[in-house]
């Protein structure tokens, strides 16, 4: 008479494992995300099909903002120190070497550097700075001297010369910067751009550069 009892199975599943996975992924994404450093200089870069990531070490970065103001920044503190001491001895600028090393970028004529370094960091924005003079019609192209110093500081070592220009900056400023590169025999440089996909059907699309030598 007795019927075999069918075991009643619970419909609820153990969520612990799934919870573990979710939070593992979450922590992974949080840790791998590099917070975008708030930049003092606002620059919107153009896009290109170049697929190589921009170098992040040993960089000498020349930035051109939308008004054509030119800024220079470097990451290696030793090299910065070299530049500061050289500037002090050759130009007698009496720069504060520690402040010079801390500065994220430089964007004034040599003569105004001491007062620039005296400014608090939060007031050193691209908009407030006059930029390094490059226009030869208005005076000397001081970027030539900056780059000369930078290449001396990196003498014998690889220096990644980068150019980051704003979409709306005009060509003459770009040309002035390139002239400064040429004057220092810095003939290899990279332009920072946003990645863009290769147009379908174009020559590059048919023959991706990986197949080519060089």
């Amino acid at each position, binding site marked *: 008479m007795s019927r075999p009892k069918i075991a009643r199975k619970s419909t609820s599943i153990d969520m*612990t494992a*799934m*919870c573990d996975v979710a939070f593992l992924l*979450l922590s992974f994404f949080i840790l791998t995300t590099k917070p975008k450093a708030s930049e003092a200089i606002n620059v919107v870069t153009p896009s*290109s099909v170049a697929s190589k990531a921009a170098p992040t070490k040993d960089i000498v970065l020349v930035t051109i903002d939308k008004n054509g103001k030119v800024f220079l920044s470097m990451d290696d503190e030793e090299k910065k120190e070299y530049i500061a001491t050289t500037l002090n001895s050759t130009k007698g600028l009496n720069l504060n070497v520690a402040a010079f090393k801390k500065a994220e970028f430089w964007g004034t004529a040599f003569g105004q550097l001491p007062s620039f370094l005296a400014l608090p960091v939060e007031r050193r924005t691209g908009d407030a700075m006059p930029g390094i003079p490059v226009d030869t019609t208005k005076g000397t192209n001081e970027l030539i001297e900056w780059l000369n110093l930078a290449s001396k500081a990196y003498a014998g070592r690889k220096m990644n010369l980068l150019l980051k220009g704003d*979409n709306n900056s005009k060509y003459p400023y770009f040309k002035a910067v390139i002239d400064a590169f040429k004057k220092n025999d810095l*003939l290899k440089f990279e332009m920072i*751009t*946003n990645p863009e996909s290769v147009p379908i059907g*174009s020559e590059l699309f048919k023959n991706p550069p990986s197949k080519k030598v060089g």
Partner: protein
Amino acid sequence: MAEMDTSSGGGHKKGPGVKKAKKLSTRVDLTPMVDLGFLLITFFIFTTTMSQPTAFKLFLPKDAEKPEDNNPVKQSGVLTILLGKDNHVFYYEGMLDNSNASSKFKSANFGNGDDGIRNVILKKKVNTPETDFVVVLKPNPECTYKNVVTILDEMSINVVKRYALVDITEVENQLVKITEAANPVK
């Protein structure tokens, strides 16, 4: 959903004095927590800008000191591209002089269409022997950095091996300006 065990089964069978402590399950329902976890993941994925800046390599030629050091190029293989303001692009093949300026000097755009600069470059590339093909880029002072990068990018898209960035001449600049004035931006 909740699995808090609140049943007090079996409590009655013992005598009235003996009370069994209620057994509470330690298991907590994790569903809401999973929901929250995935919600946060989605949020972070969407707010992260994945694109790392890329670097576009450019090699500059060394300025030749003597004119005879310059590489001579064949007239027939040269395509000159001029950049003007407001995304204007102009081009001509070979040499430009007063007599043929009006017919040779043509305008293009950055689009993909028939009169897009990409097609112009491709057409020229197909019609010229590879060793003769040179593209000369002449940005005028009013064009933007974006246009310069776009056109340099165009060189890599179309796999142009030889190209040069050259200063615009006064005559060409005037031509660009006149043509721009005649064809205002739509």
